[in-house]
């Protein structure tokens, strides 16, 4: 049951991204180009998603287990720190350069777009670079400060 639900979630998420237009970098960049010919579509994507999500997460916060009985993992981090801001700045810059964020990049690659595959490959390399850097640079310092 758990596995079916995971598969369906991945499938539905991909379908939602395709329907919404997020898998078209031209459309994403049209949204990010506020001072040019602005395409507000993606504001509706976010709005529609959050409209539904708000109720789901309000319900989730009241529970300790999922409806399938497993643990319910809600993020515990609440600090607004340099990692959050610098990371988001780098991500936003990359998003603005090509018009791909992680989900649409993957779906576009699965659609057979070679350019999306190049983006995803570079993204995975970036994630690995982060893992390596985090392991050897940040974690010892964070541990020294008593943070994990």
């Amino acid at each position, binding site marked *: 049951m758990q596995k079916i639900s995971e598969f369906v979630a991945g499938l539905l998420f991909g379908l939602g991204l395709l329907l919404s*237009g997020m898998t078209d970098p031209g459309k994403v960049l049209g949204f990010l180009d506020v001072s040019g010919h602005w*395409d507000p579509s993606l504001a*509706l994507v*976010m709005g529609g998603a959050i409209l539904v999500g708000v109720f789901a997460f309000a319900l989730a916060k009241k529970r300790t287990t999922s409806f399938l009985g497993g643990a319910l993992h809600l993020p515990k981090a609440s600090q607004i720190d340099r990692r959050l801001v610098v990371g988001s700045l780098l991500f936003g810059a990359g998003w603005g*350069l090509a018009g791909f964020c992680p989900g649409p990049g993957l779906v576009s690659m699965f659609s057979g777009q070679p350019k999306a595959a190049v983006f995803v490959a570079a993204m995975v390399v970036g*994630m690995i670079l982060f893992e390596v850097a985090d392991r050897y640079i940040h974690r010892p310092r964070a541990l020294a400060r008593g943070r994990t």
Partner: protein
Amino acid sequence: MVIDWVNFTPWASLGGGIVLGLTAALFILLNGRVLGISGILGGLLSPRVGDIGWRLVFLLGMAAAPLVFAMLAPAGFLAAPRIDAGYGLLLAAGLLVGIGTRYGSGCTSGHGVCGLSRLSPRSLVATLTFMAAGFAIVFVARHLF
């Protein structure tokens, strides 16, 4: 600012957004996980025992999406994606997105959809920050050069 009415797709985008919201709802309520793509993918790169299978199954579902979409949607419903960036730019963009989403602990789905739905101030800051960076980069690329 001029609204680009030609490319504006209010109903498809709102509908797609609602599907994304329903999926995030399903995922947290049934599987107990926040649906964040960079986190799901990134977790595979520092694998822990018992924490791999669900990520792979989710990605497998995502991989099936284009085929299923093609079966469900009328022919020609989706315009061909416009990927204007060249390979060099795509490499740079991918690296930035990979490093940035892991360093900032989330992307458009984890912070943008789920975080804002959780009313998390941390995710609001992240979302405003990556949006602002996106707006700035596109402004520089399209209007200053």
